[in-house]
């Protein structure tokens, strides 16, 4: 079994985002999902002093800086969409698995925009992963 380098970084994602699920639930038991998203962004802001790059930021290309900024806007607009879906009558048991299918968009876009391809085994892994994420989000 070969463990690729990205796996360890993804393990960090799984642990911290997995933990988020618990605190998000505790938060939305007491405040609305929209308020929770606003305070979540405040939580991001609290991290800013720790990740402030200083003058190093000037060394990166404007295009890549734009991608970084856009990632924040798209991610949070998407989260707003999810909360709006639940607020406008969508059942959480349907909305959450539906929105969890976003990797499908990446599977379609990555070969076109990033010129990446996946092996058959990875493709099978992606299918298993999508089934898993839908079942776990129900």
């Amino acid at each position, binding site marked *: 079994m070969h463990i*690729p*380098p*990205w*796996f360890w970084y993804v393990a*960090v994602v*799984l642990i*911290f*985002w*997995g933990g988020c*699920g*618990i605190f998000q*639930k*505790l938060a*939305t*038991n*007491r*405040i609305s999902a*929209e*308020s929770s998203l606003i305070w979540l962004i*405040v*939580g*991001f802001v609290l*991290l800013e002093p720790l*990740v402030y790059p200083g003058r190093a930021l000037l060394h990166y290309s404007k295009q*890549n*800086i734009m991608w*970084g900024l*856009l*990632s*924040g*806007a*798209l*991610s949070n607009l*998407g*989260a707003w*969409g999810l909360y*709006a879906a639940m607020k406008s*009558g*969508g059942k959480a048991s349907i*909305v959450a698995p539906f*929105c969890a299918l*976003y*990797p*499908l968009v990446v599977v379609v876009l*990555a070969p076109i*925009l*990033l010129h*990446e391809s*996946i092996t058959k085994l*990875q493709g*099978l*892994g*992606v299918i*298993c*992963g999508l089934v*898993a*994420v839908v*079942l*776990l989000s*129900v």
Partner: protein
Amino acid sequence: MIINSPFKARWVWYCLLCVLLWGPYTIVAKLGSREIPATTMQFLFTIGSLPVGLALLAVRKFKLEKDGKGIFHATFTGFLSGIGGMGLFAAYGSGGNTAVITTASSLYPMVTVVLAVLILRERLTWIQVVGLAFATAAFVLFSL
């Protein structure tokens, strides 16, 4: 016989919007992470999040609930999410396949499910058990 189209429901469009925004989010995250380190990407991500937060505040007419525990939990969620986000940027920056990394990282509900059992004393449903089995299979396949 009248069949109601699911596309007449507004929430379906919001779901589609979410999926269509989160997909490109990962693509731009990958593009930026090829040059910019994970911590700086997180810095930029937060700056990019601020207009959305302000827009949400404006929609709510700058009125928020004042439940201390709720605010603490939501803010702490953001703090944890930011650290996890840096992990994702680092994974993209390491040169791995974007579709594989995105799918693997989207499996975080499996940790939530396990933590919910351990911390919140929730019970696993059989659907979640099957989901955990598929998640395990996905990770095994990614590591072959």
